[in-house]
């Protein structure tokens, strides 16, 4: 990731003196001037790196029980950097492992909604007419449903599993994405370059793939960045209620629920997962806002 970032920065500076700049380079340049967004990006990458690699440096595993340290506060000599929970499990490892799950749910479910939303929206917008009206009416109807409650209803019937959360969140979050892409493609298909492509005999599928979708990516990426924190929140909410991620797996929502139950005797159990969750949500929101400012076509 950092290597990639570097190449973009250098290419931006080298072309800065020449006349034209690709829109993406301009956007990156604007973003890199946004201190809050850049700091958030750095912090988020740091959290991801810590969650992925740091559990390995701890001598404890996810469900190791340390009988000598049950419910102890953070202590470096026993290598429980974040303390232990009421069962003597190391909170440092659990917080980071939980972070892996929360982040993975956030990214994967967003990716799912991203793909469904783009395809659905592009097809509706590009086709237009009755198909479009029907497809978007369906989205309107789904939009009005209280999905959180249906997800909980689903967990009652199909048991609680992480896959259900993926499907449920994917099923909810694509709606806004589809609306954004549809609006964009409605105006894009009137543009001269789409007409030109049609004249040269490009198939509808090719036009959608090569011309419509790439041109909708700006707002879609902004929205996707803002979807990730929503999804993480959604998962934590379900897990907090005991309806999401189940033992032996853990996530920030599960840890916060355990921490909230013990907060009078062991406040660190709430403090660490809650701060990780809050900081991650902050970062993602700031990055999303920064991207919106950087990619907003109004400023171009």
């Amino acid at each position, binding site marked *: 990731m950092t290597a990639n970032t570097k190449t973009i920065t250098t290419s931006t500076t080298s072309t800065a003196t020449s006349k034209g700049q690709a829109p993406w380079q301009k956007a990156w340049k604007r973003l890199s001037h946004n201190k809050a967004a850049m700091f958030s990006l750095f912090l988020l990458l740091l959290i991801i790196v810590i969650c992925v690699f740091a559990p390995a440096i701890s001598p404890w595993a996810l469900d190791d029980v340390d009988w000598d340290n049950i419910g102890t506060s953070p202590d470096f000599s026993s290598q429980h950097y974040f303390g232990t929970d009421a069962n003597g499990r190391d909170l440092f490892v659990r917080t980071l492992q939980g972070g892996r799950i929360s982040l993975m749910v956030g990214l994967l479910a967003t990716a799912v909604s991203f793909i469904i939303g783009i395809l659905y929206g592009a097809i509706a917008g590009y086709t237009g007419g009755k198909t479009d009206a029907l497809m978007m009416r369906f989205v309107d*109807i789904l939009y*009005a449903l*209280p999905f*959180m*409650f249906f997800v*909980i209803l689903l967990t009652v*019937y199909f048991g609680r599993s992480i896959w259900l959360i993926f499907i449920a969140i994917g099923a909810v979050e694509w709606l806004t994405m589809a609306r954004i892409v549809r609006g964009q493609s409605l105006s894009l298909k009137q543009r001269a370059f789409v007409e030109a492509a049609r004249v040269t005999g490009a198939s509808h599928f090719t036009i959608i793939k090569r011309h419509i979708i790439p041109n909708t990516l700006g707002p879609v990426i902004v929205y996707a960045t803002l979807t990730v924190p929503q999804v993480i929140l959604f998962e934590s909410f379900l897990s907090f*209620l005991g309806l999401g991620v189940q033992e032996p797996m853990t996530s920030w929502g599960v840890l916060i629920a355990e921490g909230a139950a013990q907060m009078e005797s062991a406040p660190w159990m709430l403090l660490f997962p809650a701060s990780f969750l*809050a900081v991650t949500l*902050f970062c993602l929101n700031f990055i999303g806002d920064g991207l919106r400012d950087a990619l907003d076509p109004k400023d171009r």
Partner: protein
Amino acid sequence: MLAYITKRIAGTLPTLFIIVTMAFFMIRLAPGGPFDSERAVPPEIAENLERVYHLNDPLYVQYGYYLANILKGDFGPSFKYQDYTVSELIQQGFPVSLKLGLLAIILALLIGITLGATAALRQNGLVDYLVMTLAMIGVAIPNFVMAPILVLVFAVFLGWLPAGGWGDLKQMVLPVIALSLPQIATVARMTRASLIETLNAPYIRTAKAKGVPPRILLFRHASKATMLPIISWLGPATAAIITGSVVVEQIFGLPGIGRHFVNGALNRDYTLVMGVVVFYGVLIVVMNLLVDLLYAWLDPRIRY
């Protein structure tokens, strides 16, 4: 206006239909029947029960009975609570949830609008940054984190307020604040953006040029246009408040619908969970409809 109202009401019918139908078919998908318990029911009794509850009729007949019952407000008996029907549980919990939710919305409007307007009038000033930072914190910190922290600070460390229970005024303070904080942040952000946009509108500039005093400019000229986005916020806010109240009721141990709902979900009380989903689903759809109609009434551009 009448045409608009008819159109909007007709538009919500499919949504209501889908909510009820989805709930019905989900309960059909439930693994195991209602009589599959440890103690076997004699076949004759099971048959009688099945006849009374129409379990042997074709699916569409059952669906018809189900629709008719829901229209009468009857969600059937609870799977886990012996002495209660689902409707009774909802009736019992709703006043608590309603009071909690209404107070949270009122608080969010009062504080959110005040903060947002203050920030907008001092755009890019210190107050503005302060309010917006607080709003960012309010939006990013979910209420299942905020509520325990509030309990920890105000109930455990300071001992000013009780940590749970429901009834007197003191017990209501923390749950209402916990529920409304994210909404306060949202309203503040929206008010700020909306007021800044309104104050830059040509008609405000004209009024200013004609010498309208700032107070009248703000309260008479700018207020209505500023309030429009906040009216439309009321729709999603209902859904957010209802979802939030599920968590808040759980944390503070309030006897509302949210707690019945979560306990029902954990105990696999199918009818209770489904009843709450239908009840809240209809409530949210109706609220959205009312907000839309209110909006159209205030802003004639929508009607035509």
